[in-house]
């Protein structure tokens, strides 16, 4: 009975969505804001990657809100799982084989270096803080999978993560003090297509990269250890 009502409801919703999607043409320019950002992007910020300049310069306040949501989710997971009783009997886990152990220990610094490269060059090529942070977190997942019994140094990672968040807010407040508005671009723009260009954008992306990477690792650490 419940399945039949659900299928009729989904058919009505599908009809409504189809009637709305037919009138949108595929492959034609639709707005003019995008054209403005592409034409004036390099003059205003100096970043060669236009998506980076939209995320951090024209819409920088939304990125601050997103970093806050990730922070609240990590605190929420720690709070929900913290009041479990300690398990009395530990299940016997078979240790990983020799190939897995050696391979993961060999790959771990290479993947870490690759992740750091991606968020430092966020304004020159496709990449940025969130992608680099996810790659760093997957390097730590490899270590959890292969080396049993090795845990993160919790105090050090929480200190670096909070420092990353503080750097973002302090750079914004310095912009408020020097110019007129929050997150003003106060460093010189430099020559486009070089590493030291685009004002405050590389500094904010390095802070976001470390923060997101260590935060996602902390989430996985909470899920493995405390439940």
């Amino acid at each position, binding site marked *: 009975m419940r399945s039949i009502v659900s299928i009729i409801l989904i058919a009505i919703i599908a009809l409504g969505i189809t009637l709305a999607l037919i009138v949108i043409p595929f492959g034609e320019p639709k707005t003019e804001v995008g054209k403005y950002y592409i034409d004036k992007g390099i003059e205003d910020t100096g970043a060669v990657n236009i998506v980076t300049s939209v995320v951090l310069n024209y819409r920088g306040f939304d990125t601050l809100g997103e970093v806050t949501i990730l922070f609240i989710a990590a605190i929420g997971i720690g709070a929900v799982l913290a009041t479990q009783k300690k398990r009395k009997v530990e299940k016997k886990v078979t240790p990983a084989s020799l190939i897995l152990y050696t391979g993961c220990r060999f790959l771990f610094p290479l993947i870490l270096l690759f992740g750091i490269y991606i968020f430092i060059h966020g304004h020159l090529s496709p990449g940025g803080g969130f992608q680099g942070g996810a790659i760093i977190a997957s390097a730590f997942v490899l270590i959890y999978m292969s080396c049993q019994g090795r845990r993160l140094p919790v105090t050090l990672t929480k200190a670096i993560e909070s420092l990353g968040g503080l750097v973002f807010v302090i750079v914004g407040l310095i912009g408020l003090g020097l110019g007129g508005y929050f997150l003003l671009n106060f460093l010189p723009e430099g020559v*486009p297509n070089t590493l030291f260009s685009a004002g405050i954008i590389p500094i904010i992306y390095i802070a976001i990269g470390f923060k997101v990477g260590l935060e996602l690792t902390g989430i996985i650490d909470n899920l493995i250890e405390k439940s």
Partner: protein
Amino acid sequence: MDLLSNSNVANFLSNYIYYIGAFGLVSIGLCIILIKRNLIKVIIGLSILDTGVNLFLISVGYISKGTAPIFSKPGLDSARMVDPVPQALVLTAIVIGVAVLALALSLAIRLYHHYGTLNLRKIKEQRW
């Protein structure tokens, strides 16, 4: 293959294939959420629904025969570049999606330890 490239079917497909894919994912995700009873299956359906909506947002911002919005050589032609604003929105949406999924799974683990089952009908009957 010649027959396929100059007929009406190829024309219709090349206009609407991405919309059909996104819309199919959204309706399959809704199916899983409304019909299935296990809590972890419902959360898998939520993840598929999220991916479908992101695919739809990016396919709205596509311009025919356009390129990616990055000026890798100084002086590239900027007349046919794809819209950069939907890409910035979807970047935010993907990260928020993974945060919501992790919090939902930790709540599911607590429910299992408290009630002993993950069947939604049995949990609803045991409220008092």
